[in-house]
């Protein structure tokens, strides 16, 4: 079963994307903060994480850093409204697998998540 964790402090976004990916046979968990995300990564063990950057508390980049320390294999796609060059570079340096800016194309997001799943399957 493909497992996806969606991290966004906006519950509506989490719910919308959850429903979207569940329709595509994903098992989906959601988190609304960086701390929450780290717990979910440990417990839910997702294949792919969609990670927002701007969140209260531990933000997306902080969470990304911690995820990379303990879970190097999980694919992390930054999904954020922030599109400044330095943030993009920082995310890539910290090991993000992609950086998608909101508003996004659902078709592209779906394809990118599926690509990451396929990649993991290939490695396995």
């Amino acid at each position, binding site marked *: 079963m493909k497992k996806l964790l969606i991290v966004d402090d*906006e519950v509506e976004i989490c719910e919308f994307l959850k429903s979207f990916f569940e329709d595509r046979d994903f098992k989906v968990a959601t988190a609304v903060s960086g701390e929450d995300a780290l717990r979910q990564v440990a417990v839910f063990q997702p294949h792919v994480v969609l990670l927002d950057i701007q969140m209260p508390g531990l933000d997306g980049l902080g969470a990304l850093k911690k995820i990379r320390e303990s879970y190097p294999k999980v694919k992390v796609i930054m999904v954020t*409204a922030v599109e400044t060059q330095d943030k993009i570079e920082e995310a890539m340096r910290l090991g993000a697998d992609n950086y998608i800016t909101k508003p996004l*194309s659902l078709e592209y997001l779906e394809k990118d998540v599926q690509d990451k799943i396929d990649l993991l399957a290939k490695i396995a």
Partner: protein
Amino acid sequence: MPTGTGFTNNGKFDYQEVLRDVARSMVRLKRPDRLLKLITRFIDRQFGLTHTSLLILDSKKKRYEFVNSKGTGRLPANLVKFDPDHALIQWFSDPKKKQAISREYLFLSDVKKMLSRAEFRLASNSKSEQLAGVQKAMQNLKVELAVPGYFKDTLVGVLMLGRRLNGRCFAKQEVTFFQTLAHDCSMAVKTSEYNQSLLEQNRELERRLEEIEGMRRKEQRTYYEIMRSLAEEVHAKEPYTFGHVSEVERLGLMTARELGMDTVGRAKDIISAALILHDVGKIGIPDGILCKPGRLDPDEWAIMKTHVEKGAKILEPLTDFKKVREIILAHHERFDGSGYPHGLKGDQIPIEARIVSVVDSFHAIVSTRCYREGRSIEVAFDELQNCAGSQFDPVVVEAFISVLKKELQKKGKDFVLHHL
């Protein structure tokens, strides 16, 4: 336009009335975002849909974004976009082209029917691919009905409607009504964009004009400075015992003030420039004439007289100082009309020119020239008074003498002479 005057949906509302409201709102609301919100909210309340969402073209970013979404199954704000090459946008983008199904609106159920038809299933052509993309997008967003809105031939927005909560289908009149609203939304967006771009263009124009004006002023300033040094040069050619253009300027300004004239800001700039530059035309007079010891013969005198016109000519590029040219041109006119170059009389001569004339003559009398020693201030005063009414304006002579006398009393003769 909606059909059916007085059509009501179970007596719930009157389309005509609603349309009038919307039209009024469009006029009233300068900001289209409010109108779009109003329309979305209105549909949501009146029709009871899972969601009512409005996809609008952002011309600058060249993409379509959801600006509003209402209902229990609403789309999150700022999450989904459609690029212009998206199948749904492509499908609606050419309103003129005849298609298998109308591009005026699109029911998901119709799309499904279309795709299940043999011709679509068999032919894997670009149209079926496009339609499959449309279907997918509508399913992704749980949209049952999509209604495009155009401005001219540009697809400006798409009204995306979810399922009806009571399970009923949309009536033809309702679809027509949605088309009207989608059209209104597009109009509002484009009108506001147009106004916005006009505003921006105006601002840009104003900025550019200011920039040009600034450059022009700077250039004029530079030119003025060059003229000023030229004037100094002219005076240097005539070895005055004392005196300097700046002091001629000071005396003239004092006289103007004594006469109650405006001597601040632009008015001061004009008088100053005229006082400083009045003899700049002498730059075009041969040194042999300019500095000739003894009297000039009539031919030489005729050449000498041209310095006023030459001066005015030199100052032509100073468009800000048109008045200065007039003054310089008139500074050898005489009060009784016997001066040159035009023989102006009395108040035909600009007051500033009458001042320059008095100050200049005074200066000439007390200064030592190539051909004679400078005379005393008292002699100069006598001469000015003698010529008051013929060469000079008596009022200006009086003001000049009075202000200079005050200065003499206050600061002493030596001071005044040294500062002439």
